[in-house]
């Protein structure tokens, strides 16, 4: 330890195409059930037949919010689960010591689209719902619902946002700015992201197959993941159950290209290396990596190179879980961090669903079947447009001497 307070996970909440709860999500993973399905949320002439990770059902009925965007409802439902999972007593925490950091990209994009349609097609300017279009609304709603009166922000680091939000949550606790931080990510399906990725020819027509020799791209998804982070002392003082220690994180930028990753994966390599150094662990200590693994040609190749360069031939178990819920963009880092923590709890490795034959250019052997394993340390990686990379590293309770 380096004198900083440990930051532990005491609550988690999740929603994605794989399920509305932690249990449903893990059940889908354990039984190999993909949540990808044909888009039903809106009509799309060019993308309507593409498999997507759509959350089926109305998130507003779960969020208990009277208004807000689809992203807000998804985020609120995940936060509600996390709050209940953390089993806060009364009083839960000092309001000004409670922070919220959400990763988000598109917010209420559908409201923007509805407004522009009214303006250009119906020729009328009606500002209804426009105020709910901002991506920061989800963090605001969470803060309001749970009395988080401290530091509040929204991180928008493309598809690395969720991981970066977890890192910032740690920063706030370590700096003494907060005792408790709700940190995570959210994004919802909309016409812009679906057509945007499709225009870049990055979307698979038959569902993503990360690391596969015949992979054809990603599957766009939606969802939210929220983790309750606490200083270990605060958690132990209130008798909270510690689910994991968020022991390390790394964040870098390739500075290489606006949308493509650096071909050798140097930025991701450095982010993973920083996460290990932050946790004071050697590469050999890592038992499992939940890879970003989108299923695009570039991402998977680059990620595999970065992992191979850092871990060599003694690579830990690796899998991408994107085929369970699609690429949930800003939520991905948070959702996959939660899956990593669940893997530590369940002592089991999630399978790399959809993988038939590993791309021969990829020097990894992703785990294809759900498998029991002794896991003490798990890492989750994320890459995003603009060369943003993040890595977060979790340790299982019992693998360190708790603070007294």
């Amino acid at each position, binding site marked *: 330890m380096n004198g900083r307070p440990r930051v532990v996970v005491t609550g988690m909440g999740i929603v994605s195409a794989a399920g509305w709860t932690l249990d449903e999500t893990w059940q889908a993973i354990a039984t190999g059930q993909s949540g990808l399905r044909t888009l039903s949320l809106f009509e799309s*002439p*060019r*993308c309507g037949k593409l498999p997507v990770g759509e959350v089926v059902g109305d998130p507003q009925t779960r969020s208990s919010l009277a208004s807000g965007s689809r992203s807000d409802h998804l985020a609120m439902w995940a936060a509600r689960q996390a709050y209940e999972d953390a089993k806060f007593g009364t009083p839960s925490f000092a*309001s*000004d010591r409670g922070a919220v950091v959400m990763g*988000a*990209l598109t917010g209420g*994009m559908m409201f*923007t*689209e509805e407004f*522009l*349609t009214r*303006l*250009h*097609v119906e*020729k*009328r*300017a*009606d*500002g209804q719902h*426009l105020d709910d279009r901002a*991506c*920061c609304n989800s*963090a*605001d709603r969470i*803060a*309001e619902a749970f009395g988080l009166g401290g*530091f*509040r*922000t*929204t*991180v*928008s*680091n*493309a598809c690395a946002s969720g991981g*970066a939000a977890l890192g*910032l949550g740690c*920063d706030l606790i370590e*700096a003494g*700015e907060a005792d408790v931080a709700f940190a995570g990510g959210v994004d919802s399906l909309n016409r*812009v992201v679906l*057509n*945007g990725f*499709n*225009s*870049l020819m990055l979307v698979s027509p038959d569902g993503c197959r990360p690391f596969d020799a015949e992979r054809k791209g990603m599957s766009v998804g939606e969802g939210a993941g929220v983790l309750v982070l606490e200083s270990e002392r605060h958690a132990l003082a209130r008798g909270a159950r510690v689910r994991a220690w968020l022991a390390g994180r790394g*964040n*870098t*930028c*390739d*500075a*290489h290209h*606006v949308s493509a990753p650096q071909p050798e994966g140097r*930025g991701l390599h*450095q982010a993973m290396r920083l996460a290990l150094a932050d946790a004071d662990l050697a590469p050999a200590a890592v038992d499992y990596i939940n890879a970003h693994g989108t299923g695009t040609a570039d991402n998977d190749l680059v990620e595999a190179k970065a992992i191979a360069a850092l871990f060599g031939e003694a690579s830990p178990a690796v899998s991408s879980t994107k085929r369970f819920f699609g690429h949930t963009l800003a939520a991905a880092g948070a959702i996959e961090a939660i899956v990593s923590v669940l893997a530590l709890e369940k002592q089991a490795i999630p399978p790399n669903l959809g993988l038939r034959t590993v791309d021969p250019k990829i020097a990894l052997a992703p785990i294809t079947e759900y498998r029991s394993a002794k896991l003490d340390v798990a890492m989750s990686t994320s890459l*995003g*447009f*603009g*060369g*943003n990379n993040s890595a977060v590293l979790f340790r299982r309770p019992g693998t360190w001497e708790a603070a007294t």
Partner: protein
Amino acid sequence: MTFSGYAADIVAAGVVRPGSVPVTRPAPVGVAQEPWSAYRLDAATLQSLSPPERIKRMGRGQEMAIGAVQRAIDSCAGRTDPPARGSGTAVSVGTAWAEEGDEITFLENLIKLGEKAAKPAYFVNSVKNALASQLALTFGFQGENQTFAHDALSFESALWQGAHLLRAGRARHAIVCGVEALVEFQEIHGHLLGWYGTDPTPLAPLAAKKRAAGQGTLPGEGAAAFVLTAPGIVASPLARLAFVRARGPLQRAPVLSPKAELAFVEKVLRDSDVSLDGVGLVLLGANGDSALDGIYAEVARGLRAKSPGLSIGVYRHIIGDFATASALGFELAVRVVAGRSVPNEVRVVDGGPGSFERVLLYHVTSAGTHSAIIVSA
């Protein structure tokens, strides 16, 4: 921010902003009859910010951010080495809307021309970290790279994170930038929701004589960038970041209370261990909207009652209203401390000559967010 001592040295600053007079142009057809005014950067200035050979295609915000960072880097000369390429330099950007213009263009193409008209370049630029990643790409900064997109808390978040990275030893330099590019869609939004007025004359925050149709402010845009280092590394920094705090409300559409706002500022002073008597200037973010002027005036009155020598200044009459305007206010605060005098851009509304070794920058918005930053010599 609860650091002991001050948080970071500010070693350089650069700004891009429009002229101090609003520009008027017709409102979009079908939206409004009266012309609209805004503090808008002219095309020639915008074009001059980035050498043409460096530009493939950039959005307005990217050009402004690059211009501000380049000016900040240029101004390092004589004081310190410029931030190095590589992993030692972090980038922390606050921007509520980033390149929303490109996002709107992408969407409008889908609506007007159909999905076959989806243009990848607009999509890539619509992602909010397009600004921060373009800064990394342009200047070769490979350290931690964060984009904060939280309305009027965006710049303060970036500032906190930049200082934290330095304190934690995770960067040698932090480039902190606040930027907002004004696009027509935001003007439409703001006018429909009643935020913006139609009086074309410059804003007059806390002025005795109100503008016509005193309600509402005018939209603006701009960018300010700063080079920060950990305390004590540079012999003669421009100024020091002593404290930053930003908070949001716990209810939607809160009723603002001058008493609560004054309490917020006083708590910041207590938590930062700064005496009000040690503050020379309080720079207010009053944006010319008479609905907010009353709050700012009460806070100023409350502070002056406790420290009669305090000067009160405003600055939004030169840039208008946008979410990360506090970045430009921060640059003025730095300049006040660095020069120990009040630049022309700041209009002093109360008080007079004094010691300007410490400035308190305070903002409150109608949405209920508020922030305070303390800049010291």
